[in-house]
C-alpha cells in the first residue's frame, strides 16, 4: 500500500526537500532509519538483560 493524497505542484520548498541526509556515515534515509531501528533493538536487549541480571 502506498500513501495516497493530492500532492501540490512542486515549488521552491519542494526542491529543497529533495536534499539527502547530509550525514557522513548514512547517505540515504533508509540507512538512517535502519540505524535508529538497530539502536532501538539494542536498547530493548540491554534492558531485558538488565531485568534478567538484577531481578
Amino acid at each position, binding site marked *: 500500500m502506498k*500513501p*495516497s493524497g493530492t500532492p*501540490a505542484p512542486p515549488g521552491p520548498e*519542494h526542491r529543497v526537500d529533495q536534499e539527502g541526509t547530509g550525514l557522513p556515515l548514512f547517505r540515504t534515509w533508509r540507512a538512517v532509519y535502519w540505524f*535508529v531501528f538497530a539502536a532501538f533493538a539494542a536498547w530493548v536487549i540491554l534492558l*531485558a538483560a538488565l531485568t534478567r*541480571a538484577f531481578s
Partner: protein
Amino acid sequence: MNPLDYLVLFGTMLAIAAYGLWRARGQRGLSGYIRGSGSSGWVTIGLSVMATQASAVTFLSMPGQGYEDGLTFVQNYFAMPLALIIVAAVFLPMFRRLNVYTAYEFLGRRFDAKTRLLGAGLFLLQRGLGAGITIYAPAIVLSTVFGWPLNLTIIFSGLLVIIYTVIGGNEAVSVTQKYQIMVIFGGMVTAFVILLARMPAQLTFTDALTVAGTFHKMNAVDFSPDLHKRYTFWSGMFGGMCLMLSYFGTDQSQVQRYISGASLRECKLGLMFNALCKIPMQFLILLLGVLLFVFYQFEAPPVFFNQSSWQAAAARDGGKFHALEQKFAAVCAEKEQSIRAWLDARHRNDSSAETAARAQALAAHDRSEAIRGEARAALHDADAHAQKNDGDYVFITFILAHLPHGVIGLLVAAFFAAALSSKAGELSALGSTTSVDFYRHLVKRQADDAHYVKASKWFTAFWGVVALGFALFANLAENLIQAVNIVGSVFYGVVLGLFLVAFFIKWVRGTAVFWGALLAQALVFCLYFSLKNTPYEISYLWYNLVGCAACLLFSLVIQALDFKTKE
C-alpha cells in the same frame, strides 16, 4: 528555598521568556506566526519536539514512579522510535508537500470538510483537557511543598506562558523550548550526580542495582501477555505504537513543531534525534527514581513523602501519627542493618549469610510497606480529601533535603521550564487549529493575513484562559502522569485511524471515514467506562489500538456497504 534559589528560578524563567519574545520580534503574516521563520535547524526542532512531549510531570513525577514501581514505565516508550520512523518517512513528507498549517488541513484535502473538522475537534477536546493538567500538575506539588498559594502558582506560570506564546507565536515557542530543555537537562544531570555522590561510600553501583533488583525495581522489560498489566512489552509495542504514532503524526502540538523546519532534512533529523534519545532519557529518569529508592534504604525516609499533608493531619491527631513515624523509623533502621549485613556477606562471598540477611531485609521491607499503608489509611481517616499517593513528592523531598541552595532553584526552574515548554506547544497548537481549521474555514474565509494573525492570538489567549480555568477549578485524578496519558489514549486511537485511512486506503471516502470514526469513538467510550474498575479492565494503552482498529474497520465496512448500495 532561599533568595539565591528564587533568583535562579525567576532569573531563568523570565530571561528565557524575554529572549524568546525578542527573537520573535518583527515576524509578519500568518505563516510566520504559526510556522515561525522557517529557518529552524534540526537541533531546535529536535529539542522543541522533546520539550513539547516532556512536561513537568515527566521530571517531577517520574522519579517517584521509578521509586514506587521501578523501571517498568520505560516500556511505554518502546514504540516511539518506530513510530517516529513512520512519521518521518510517510506523514512528514506529505505535510510538507501540501504546505499545510495544521495536520487536519490534510484531512480536508484528502476527504472533506466534515472529516477535517472532526479531526480538529477531537484534537481540541483532548488537548484542551490536557493543557489544564499540565498547568495543574507541577503547581499542586510545588505549592504543597513550598507552601505557596496554589492558585497564585497556577496563575503566575499560566500567565507567563500565555503572554510569550500569544505575542511571539511559534517562533517564540521554539526558541524558548530550546533553552528550557537545556535548563531541564542541566538540573536533572546535576541531581543525578549529587545523588550518586551521596550514596554510602562502600556501596558500588552494582550493589545499588542488586539492592534495587531485590526489591523488584529493575523490572524494565516484562514479556507477560497479561492484558490487565498496565505496562508490558506488548502493551508498549502495540498500544504504545498507536499512541506514539497518533501523538507525533496527528497531534498538532507536535506537527507544528516539526513542519516548521528549514527543510525536510532538518525536520527528519529532528525527529530521528528524538527517536534515538527518548528511550535512554526516560530510562535515566526512572533510574534516578530507582537510585532514590536505594538511597533511602540507607537514609531514613519520611513515612509519607507529602510532608505538608502529613504534618497538617498530625497537628490534629499527633499521638497516632507520631507512633506511626516511630514504628516506621524502627523498621527502616532494622532494614538498613539487614541490607548492610547482606552486602557485607556478598562482598565476602558468604552465600549462606547473604541469603539470611537478604531474607531479613525483604521481611523488613514488607513490614515498612505495611506501615506506609497504615499511614495512608490514617491520613485518609484524618482528611478524606488528602492525596494517598505520595510518589509525586519523592524527588522534590530529596532535592530540598540534600541539594545545595542555588541547585534547588535550578531544579525548581527546571520543573517550571518543563511545564511552560509543553504548555506553550499545546497553546500554540490549540490557537492555530481553532484559527485555521474553524475560524478561517467556517467563519471568515476572505480576510487579510493581519486579521488571521490577530484571530490566532485571540484564540491562543482563549485556550490559555480555558487551561487556567480548568487547572484552577478541576478536581483532577490522583496520579498525574497516568491522568495525562489516559485522557490521550481515549481519543488518540480514533484520530490515528482517520490519518491511516487517509494515507493508506485510497478507496475510502470522507463520509465513510467520518461515520467510522464517530462509531469507533463511541465504542472506545463504552469500553472504557464499562470496563473501568471491573475484573476485565485493560491497560489504557490498549484503547489506542482498539480506537485505531475500530476506525479502520468501520470505515472499510461503511465504504463497502456504500458501494454495494450504489451498485
